[in-house]
């Protein structure tokens, strides 16, 4: 059961909290900035995602949606 994670990029504030809690260490900060000027988070190797939703639970800005199936 692989997970799939989507980010509402425009809402991301680049806080890196999701990065710090992903057990798979697959979240990274993108080099480009969103219109607010933050580097948004993104998943690097989606296939490794377990859909554990740790990232989403941690995100203060409800940026992340996690699916599994």
């Amino acid at each position, binding site marked *: 059961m692989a997970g799939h994670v989507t980010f509402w990029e425009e809402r991301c*504030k680049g806080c890196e909290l999701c990065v710090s809690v992903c057990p798979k260490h697959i979240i990274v900060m993108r080099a480009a900035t969103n219109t*607010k*000027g*933050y580097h948004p988070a993104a998943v690097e190797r989606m296939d490794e995602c377990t859909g554990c939703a740790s990232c989403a639970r941690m995100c203060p800005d409800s940026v992340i949606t996690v699916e599994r199936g």
Partner: protein
Amino acid sequence: MTHEIILSGFGGQGIMAMGKMLAEAGMQEGLSVNWLPSYGPEVRGGTANCSVLLSSEPIISPLVLEPTEIIVMNKPSLLRFEPQLVSGGHAFVNSSIIEIQASRRDITAFYVPCLDIAQELGNPRIANMVMLGAYIEVTQCLHAKTVEQMLAHLFTGAKAGLVALNKEALRRGAASILKAAC
């Protein structure tokens, strides 16, 4: 002689400090000065702006509504303040991160790649000093020396090493203008 300046950018770009240096230096040169920050609820990373008045006359209203110069360190600041500039006014644009140009024809814009220069000097946090150097060079509203002397007072003890770096930033900023003028 009256300069009405608006300085604007992201929080963290040293906007407020740049404004204060202008005001402090102006005062030391015997000008009337006023520094006015815009203030809002604390949120890190928002926009920051302030205005500075330098005048050989006593300053009357502290409001800068029609600046003679704007110093804009990011794109939203350019978009917001360019329209307010007086006709014939000067815009100082941080061209390192603002990819667009000023749109008005009745003003003069100076594009200073201050972040690039600062990075060349090894410290992105002195981009504001680069810009300040450029500003002074163009407007000649202050003696560059006054600002340099202030630096010596500002950075003492362990930080004394920063004096030279900041001076260099000022000079590079000024030089960038000379280059542009060529």
